[in-house]
Each structure stands twice: as structure tokens, then as C-alpha cells.
């Protein structure tokens, strides 16, 4: 019975999703309602399964590729979270997407995405995981392309970037099969010497490519502008983080035993992602684009936390993952609420919304406080844990701690600016007044905002109820004693207070200088040195996709000319040679003397051959 339920968990959304794509429906809300009901059913199924241990094992393609699923502490956490986010987003979309062009395909792909994500989280065989994982490429591309006219360009960009990281993952898995002689995820345990190290790096590329860390992030800000908004809340904010960081955790904790060098590599990726993405976020002038840079920056914290290898850091990283999914999802939904009522998310045209959209504003404030690490919201708890993890690494690794703290500072600053600009800045009096969004859109935001508070104030609940069983297997000795985190007025608390004070101070300075909330980061943008870097970034100089396209063009041209060169051989050289040989016919001039001399010469050659080949 339980096994059947596990199957249903990803078969139902796959089938319903496929049917929604194929069957034409004209009723306005029908697709939305069907998907919401389906998503609700899946939440029910997932909760029903909670706490059980189920394994499914079927032969599939041979060579270690078996259809193996495993429902246990870690996957139950990811799967349940996926179903809940999917439910909230579908509910939100029923109203948001209803009259959008091309929305008829939206729900089908939404449910297919859910099926793939659940399958990837449940897999206990690397190929099964890759099967679902890479399958997300298609639905991601499709969902992005459903946005604006030009959205398919961004869809292609995401397909190519994630596709590359998935190909690396494929090869990493191939190496693991050769080295470990198994694809069963619960049995793999390798060191990182030689070829294993290559496998580790390739697997990590696959994982962080999905999570959207640098340098695989550049499609996310573009998608924020082009793709339908629920997509942003669904994939880059929630599902991709859940899956990507889940895999990072499995790689770093279960599959490989890391050396210090590898640890530093992982933590560096985390630290670089935090700093650069948050600096970009700080100067954005579009609600959604700003959020999308934070979706990148926050991954850095998760990777950094897991990379520390210190129990509190790992737990903090994973706790940050689920917290981030909640508040970032909530933030994107508030931006959608703003967009649907005002028709734009350009911060220059927004302002004073607190009076017109009070509920949206409250949800925004709660989520923004969480992401900025204000106590007692959930983001504060997980960030503190990551700080602590980074500190425990010892003084040689202090740089990572500094990066984390700096990131927190700029995160807080950019959310002060965003909130100020959207909700509190002076409003253009000519702009028509708007009402707050429909209740189906408000409900998901409220639920998420409330959970942010619950997970912050009663953090022991998720820490011991969700994360402890999840990490039981990988870190049994450490976890047995339970995960401890106490609010206290130690140095870390004061660090947070200091960060927030600086952020507010910085905001105040910026506000005084420009007179607008939106201008609060302008003085940072204008800093000498930084200004030039920002200019280059705006010209996409740092986008590996754009640069790769430029550089790749020459390589491709070169390959093309090799091909043409080979063809020249057949088209020109061979016929020309044939023509030259044909000129030999002039030897046939009809003179007997000539023919005779040819014959004698030939005869001599034959005699010579026989003479030489006579055995002595």
C-alpha cells in the first residue's frame, strides 16, 4: 500500500500534467482548478507517508541501472517540501495566469516539473536521479518560453547553461560507476584522489548548476524579466534550490570524503557567489530582477554552510535552504501581487503601495526581515548557524566568515531599498489607485510568511523534527545528541545587530543623498572602481554565456573551415589531379618507336625483378 502511494506521488502529476497538455479545454479556470486539486492531493499523500521507510527496486536497463527509489529521512523532507511549494504556487497561479496568453500549457508543465522533481529526490540510483533531474531541462525551457514574446531566448539560455552542467553530471556519474562499481546512492563512498576527484568536481558542477550558483546563474535574472512570475517562485526560488542543495549535501556528505583542498574549493564557490550576486542585487531597479540576484546570492550561504563540514554549518546550510525557499518564494509572490495589480515591477514606477496593498506589504516585510537575518525570523537562525560553522573552521578560514557577514550586510541594505522604493516612496499622484490581490494569491503569501515566523521562533521544531531525521544517516554520531541552537547574547548576536545597524545607516545616507528610497544604493554604485565594474557587468562582460558565445564563434568557425578544407580535397584537388593524369594520353602519339621503347623498358624491369628475387 505504501509502495503504491510512493509511486502515485510522481505518477499522478506526470499523467495529469501530460493530459492537461494534450486535452483541449476551454473553460477559464478548469485547468487551474484541476492542477490545484492534484497538487493538494499530492500534499496529502506526502504527509501520509511521513516517517516511513520505503524502498523500491526494479530492474531497468542493466549495467547497474535499476529503477531504485528510497523514501527515508532526507528524501521525505525534500519531497514533502516540493509538494507543498507546488500546491501554493498552483493555487497562486489559478488567478495570476488565468488570462495570460499561452497559459493553457502552463499547468501541464507545472505538474510535470513537480513529477520530475519528486522523482529526482526519491531516486536511490544515480541514473534514476539523472533521468528525472535532466528531464527538468525540458519543463524549465517550456515554462520560461511561456512568458513574453522573446522569452524563448532566455529559455534557450537556461537550457544551454543547465544542459552543460547536466552533461558534466552525466560524466561524473559515469566515472563513479567505473570507480565504485555501483550506482546505488546509499552505497557509494569514495575518496577524492585522482579520477575520483574529477568525478567529484563534475558532480558538484551538476549540483550547483541546478542550484544556480556562480558561474551558472546568468539565466536567472533574465528569466525574472521574461518568464511568467509563478515560474520564478516555483523553480529558481524553491524547487531548484531544494534539489541542487540536496545533491550538494549528498555529494559532500555521503558520496565523497572530502580533503581540505576540496572543502576550500566548495566554500570559495559559496563565498564568491554570496558577494558578487549580492553586489549585483544591490543596484537593480526592477523588483523581480533584484529578487533573482538574491536567489543566487543565498545559494552561496547554503553551499558555504555545507562546505564547512562542521555539523552546525551543515545543518545551518540545509536549514537555510528550506528557509530560503520559503521567504524567497514569498517574496516572488509579493512581486507577482504587485505586478498583477500595477502592471509593472519597475521600481521607478512603483511607490506608496503600503496603503493600497497592505497585506502584500506585511508579507513582504516579514519575508524581507527573514532574508536580512533579523531576529527572530527563520533567516536569522540559519544564518547564525552558518556564521558559527564558518567560525568553527578556525582562524585560517576567517575569510569565509567575513564574506558571509559582508553578504548579510548588503542583503539587508538591498531589501531596505527595495521595500522603501516599492511600498513607501512618494507616489506619483497621477497613478491610479489599486486594490490588493485576489485571495487565492494572498493565501500562499500569508502561509509562507507565517511559516517564516514559526520556523524562526520555534526553530527547534524544524531542526529536530525535519533536519535531524534527514541527516541521521550521514552524521549519525554527531546528530544523536540532537541539534542545539540557542538564542543568546554572545558575539554572534552582536555581529548581527552590527550588520543591521550598518545597513540602516547606509540606507539613511543613501536616502538623504538622493531623496528617494530607490536611490539608497546609488552612492555605492558611484564608488570609484566599483562603478566601472558595474558598467562592465551591465554590458554582460561577466556573463560566461555571452562571452562563451563570442569566443565559441571563432572555435566553431575554425572547425567549419577544417570541414571545408576536407571538402576542398574532394571537390577541387581530386578532379584537378585526375585532369593532370588524363594529360598522359598525349604519350599515345602513334609512333612505333615510342611504343617499342616502352615495351623494352617494361621487359627490362620484369627481368630485373626476377633477378633480384632469385633466392641465393
Amino acid at each position, binding site marked *: 500500500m505504501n509502495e503504491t502511494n510512493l509511486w502515485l506521488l510522481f505518477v499522478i502529476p506526470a499523467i495529469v500534467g501530460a493530459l492537461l497538455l494534450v486535452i483541449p479545454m476551454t473553460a477559464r479556470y478548469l485547468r487551474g482548478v484541476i492542477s490545484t486539486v492534484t497538487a493538494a492531493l499530492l500534499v496529502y499523500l506526502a504527509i501520509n507517508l511521513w516517517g516511513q521507510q520505503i524502498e523500491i527496486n526494479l*530492474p*531497468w*536497463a*542493466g*549495467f547497474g*541501472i535499476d529503477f531504485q527509489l528510497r523514501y527515508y529521512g532526507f528524501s521525505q523532507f525534500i519531497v514533502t517540501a516540493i509538494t507543498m511549494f507546488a500546491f501554493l504556487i498552483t493555487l497562486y497561479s489559478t488567478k495570476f495566469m488565468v488570462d495570460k496568453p499561452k497559459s493553457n500549457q502552463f499547468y501541464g508543465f507545472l505538474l510535470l516539473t513537480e513529477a520530475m522533481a519528486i522523482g529526482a529526490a526519491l531516486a536511490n540510483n544515480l*541514473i534514476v536521479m*539523472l*533521468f*528525472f533531474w*535532466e*528531464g527538468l*531541462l*525540458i519543463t524549465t525551457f517550456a515554462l520560461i*518560453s511561456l512568458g513574453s514574446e522573446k522569452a*524563448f531566448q532566455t529559455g*534557450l539560455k537556461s*537550457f*544551454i547553461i543547465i*544542459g*552543460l552542467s547536466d*552533461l*558534466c553530471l*552525466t*560524466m561524473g*556519474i*559515469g*566515472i563513479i*560507476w*567505473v570507480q565504485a562499481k555501483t550506482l546505488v546512492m546509499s552505497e557509494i563512498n569514495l575518496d577524492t584522489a585522482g*579520477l575520483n576527484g*574529477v568525478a567529484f568536481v563534475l558532480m558538484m558542477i551538476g549540483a550547483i548548476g541546478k542550484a544556480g550558483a556562480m558561474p551558472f546563474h546568468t539565466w536567472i535574472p533574465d528569466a525574472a524579466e521574461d518568464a511568467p512570475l509563478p515560474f520564478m517562485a516555483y523553480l529558481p526560488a524553491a524547487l531548484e534550490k531544494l534539489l541542487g542543495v540536496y545533491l550538494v549535501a549528498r555529494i559532500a556528505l555521503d558520496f565523497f570524503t572530502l580533503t581540505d583542498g576540496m572543502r576550500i574549493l566548495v566554500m570559495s564557490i559559496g563565498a564568491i557567489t554570496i558577494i558578487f550576486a549580492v553586489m549585483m542585487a544591490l543596484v537593480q531597479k526592477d523588483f523581480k530582477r533584484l529578487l533573482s540576484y538574491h536567489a543566487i546570492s543565498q545559494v552561496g550561504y547554503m553551499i558555504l554552510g555545507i562546505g564547512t563540514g562542521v555539523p552546525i554549518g551543515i545543518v545551518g546550510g540545509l536549514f537555510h535552504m528550506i528557509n530560503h525557499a520559503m521567504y524567497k518564494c514569498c517574496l516572488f509572490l509579493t512581486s507577482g501581487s504587485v505586478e498583477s495589480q500595477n502592471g509593472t515591477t519597475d521600481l521607478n514606477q512603483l511607490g506608496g503601495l503600503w496603503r493600497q496593498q497592505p497585506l502584500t506589504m506585511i508579507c513582504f516585510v516579514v519575508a524581507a526581515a527573514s532574508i536580512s537575518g533579523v531576529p527572530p525570523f527563520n533567516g536569522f537562525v540559519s544564518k547564525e548557524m552558518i556564521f558559527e560553522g564558518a567560525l568553527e573552521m578556525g582562524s585560517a578560514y576567517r575569510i569565509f566568515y567575513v564574506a558571509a557577514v559582508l553578504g548579510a550586510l548588503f542583503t539587508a541594505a538591498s531589501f531596505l531599498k527595495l521595500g522603501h522604493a516599492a511600498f513607501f516612496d512618494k507616489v506619483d499622484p497621477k497613478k491610479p489607485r489599486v486594490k490588493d490581490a485576489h485571495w487565492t494569491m494572498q493565501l500562499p503569501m500569508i502561509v509562507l510568511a507565517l511559516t517564516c515566523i514559526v520556523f524562526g521562533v520555534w526553530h527547534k521544531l524544524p531542526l529536530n523534527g525535519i533536519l535531524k531525521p534527514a541527516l541521521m544517516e550521514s552524521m549519525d554520531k554527531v546528530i544523536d545528541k540532537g541539534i542545539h541552537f540557542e538564542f543568546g547574547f554572545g558575539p554572534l548576536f552582536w555581529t548581527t545587530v552590527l550588520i543591521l545597524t550598518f545597513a540602516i545607516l547606509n540606507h539613511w545616507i543613501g536616502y538623504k543623498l538622493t531623496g528617494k528610497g530607490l536611490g539608497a544604493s546609488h552612492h555605492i554604485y558611484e564608488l570609484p572602481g566599483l562603478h566601472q565594474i558595474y558598467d562592465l557587468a551591465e554590458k554582460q562582460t561577466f556573463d560566461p554565456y555571452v562571452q562563451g558565445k563570442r569566443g565559441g564563434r571563432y*572555435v*566553431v*568557425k*575554425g*572547425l*567549419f573551415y*577544417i*570541414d*571545408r578544407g*576536407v*571538402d576542398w*580535397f*574532394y*571537390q577541387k584537388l581530386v578532379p584537378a589531379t585526375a585532369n593532370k593524369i588524363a594529360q598522359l594520353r598525349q604519350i599515345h602519339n602513334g609512333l612505333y618507336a615510342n611504343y617499342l621503347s616502352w615495351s623494352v623498358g617494361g621487359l627490362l624491369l620484369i627481368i630485373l625483378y626476377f633477378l633480384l628475387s632469385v633466392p641465393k
Partner: protein
Amino acid sequence: MENVILLAILLPIIGAFILPVIGRFSAKIRNITALLLVTTSFGASLSLLGPVLSGKTTTFLLSMPLGFDLILTADALGILMALASSFVGIIIVMYSFGYIHHDANQNEYYLMVVLFLGSMIGLVYSQNLIFIYLFWEIAAICCWRLIGFYREREIVLKADKAFLITVFGAVAMLLGFVILYSQHNTFNLLEMQGKEASSLAVLLIMFGIFSKSATLPFHTWLPDAGVAPSPVTGLLHAAVLVKIGVFAFARIFVGTLQFDPVWMQILPIVIAASALVAGGAALVDTNIKRIIAYSTISQLAFIFLGLVMKNPIAIAGGLLFIIMHGLAKGGLFLCAGIVEHNAHTKDIRQMGGLITKMPITTVSFALCALSIMGIPPFGGFFAKYMIITGAVEGGNPWIAGVFILGGFITVLYVLRLFALVFLGEMRTDLVNVKEGSNTMLAAVVILGVLSLLAGFLVHFPNEFIQIALEQMKVGI
């Protein structure tokens, strides 16, 4: 059962010559007869499946002097290939009804197509090198007539080019066969089992195989062959011609003879170069059929990589990719045929936005394209994974890395093609473009859906491939 093998081969080969006679009276009956001939041949191969699944092979033997014995064996490898080819063949013949029915010389067209398929079936069951060569050259002649089907001078020159290059290769290969004969005193592959081939023979035979399977540096005739009608290019790429070379490699060097280990160093480098060069060319070219042709060259490299590595997972991947590539590439060409037929251009710069006008073709094209790229849940995914893994297992992680790059280039050029043809803005002169005819759409939908199902049901082909591996004594 032995006579069933003869039926599978001779029915299309002899039946083909009756088609023009029927065609003088009724085009419709001729078309149906052609379809029946190919279907019956498919059915005959299918009926040979039973014994193979229970571990036996069926052999037909006709003794002849001078080592020219006609030996036909229906083993797992042969049946796998015969089924894959004749299945795609059926789809393509069906598609031709819609595509070709305005053109002249239809009698010759159906004669050549059916003869082509018959020679392929003959080749896959032959165990005598001389008969392999014989069927090989019948295929070359059919291919020559079919590429030059539209009789303009330019086109005929391209057909000549294809014919000359492949025949040059085939003659070199024949020399190689003669050397093998002088070494082992037989043309019978069954008697050569496990013996060593001299490097000169390997070199000469590889000329033939690479020229037929369009691998660098003998590949440029294949993009040029795109001047043929689309079902013909589909046939060349998916079912028959280029698969002959790959198959011959599997038959001769994987299943039968051993070669010097130095070839294990040389061949991967050649095919890796082939994959990259073809991929680069596909990213630059602007003719829809040439791009797909270059993609065939780069994907053939994947198949070769699998077969060259000589370990079970790699070979299984290579054989699996023969099937998956056949289905998907056939679909791509037939979709391209619909596009080219209705939009009256092959230049992808002059297309765009066709998704609104031909949604079914677009979806089928996308399904096949995803399989070629190796994206799950499509069939190509498993094959590519197994090939890459096999390359690592064979001790060539660098080559595997190059092929990951090749796989990435594949993603790039297929996406570029798809985006330029089907997405984006519609050009004004394409506003009146319509979907293809029903039989044409049915053909592409079948291939697209099968590419998808093959991923979920990869269990079945793989189990069969395991039997083929056992019969080829791989890994022993």
C-alpha cells in the same frame, strides 16, 4: 526457419523489380505493394526473434566453390539491425506516398528504395565477407540513383561524389578482405572467430567503413547528399546507408576479429575529431538538411566510440544508440521534409515562427531532437550515458571528456536549428504555410512518440542487446 531468412532478403530484392511493372498500370497498387514488401520483410525478421530469445541462432547455408559460400545467420546483432532498419524503412515508404507523389520517375524511386532496404537486410545477415561486399555495393548503386533523383546537373554531380567516395572506400575494403583471406584462408566470418587481423587489413577495411559511415576525413559527401528528396535522406541517415558502416564494424571487429591494441588509440582520436568538426560545421551551416546531416556525422562518432571501446557497457550503448538514433534522425529528416516541402526553402534564416502553422511537426521535431541531444526521458539519454561511461571504463577519460564537449555542441546546434525554424517571429512570406499531409504527419508522430517511449521502455532493447553481447562473446 532457415528459409525465413531468405524470404526477408529476397522478397524485397526481387520484389523491387516488379514494382515498375505494376507502376505502369496503377500507382496506388505499386505503392501498396512496396509497403507490403518492406512490411513482410520486417515481419520475417520479427519471426526470427523467437529462436534468438531462447538462445539459438538460425543459419542458412548454400555451399559454393572458392570460398563463396552463401552463409546467412540470424543472430541477435543481425536481427536487431534488420528490425531497426526495416521498421524505419516502413515509416519512410509510408511517408513517401505523400512526399513524392508529384514527381517524375516514381517507378524507379520505389524500385530503388525497396532494393536498398533489401540489400541492407541481406548485408546484416551475411556471414561471408564477399556477400557483405556484394550487398554493400548494391546499396551504393541504389544510393547513387536516389541521391540524384532530381535530375539537375548540380544534383547528379553530388550523387556522383557520394558514389565515388563510398565506392573508393569499398574497393579498399575489398582489398582488406582479400588480405584477411590470405591470412586465414576463408571469407567465412564464423571461421575467423577470435583470430587476429593484420593492421594493413584493418586500415583498408576502416577506409570502407569510415567512408560509408561518413566519418572524418571521408564525410563530406553526406551533407552534400541532402539534395536528395527528404525521405531518401531519412533513409540514408536513419535506416540504411550510414548504419552499414557502423554495423560492419560491429560485425567484423567487435563480434569476430581481434585487432592490434594500437587501433584502440588511433580510432578514438579520429572519431573524436569527426564529432567536433561535424558539430562545428553544423553550428555554422544554414541549410536545414545539411545541418541535420552534420549532426548524423557527429552522432555516428558516438556510436563508433561505443563500439571501439570493446567493453560491454560501451558496446551496449553503441548498439542502443543505433536504434535510438535511427528513430530520432529519421523523424528529424521527415520533419525537415515537411518544412521544406511546404515552406519552399531550405535556408533556416528565411524561416521562423513555424510553430503556429505546423504544431504537430514542431512537437514531433522537438521529441526527436531531444532524443538526439540525449535528454531524458528520451531514448538517446541512456545510449549516450552508456557510451560515455564505457569510454571511461575503457581507460579513456579524456576522450570521454571530448565527447561530453561533443554532446554539448550537439545540444547547441540542435537548439539553434529548432529555434530558428520553429520559434521566433513569423516571416511574412510564410504566413500561408500549411501542415503536411496526413500520412506524412503520421510518420513523424510515430517516430517522435517512439523516441519518447524508447526511454521509458529501454528495458526491452537493452535485454535484447545483452543477448547480442553474449553471442558476440564480448567481455570474455
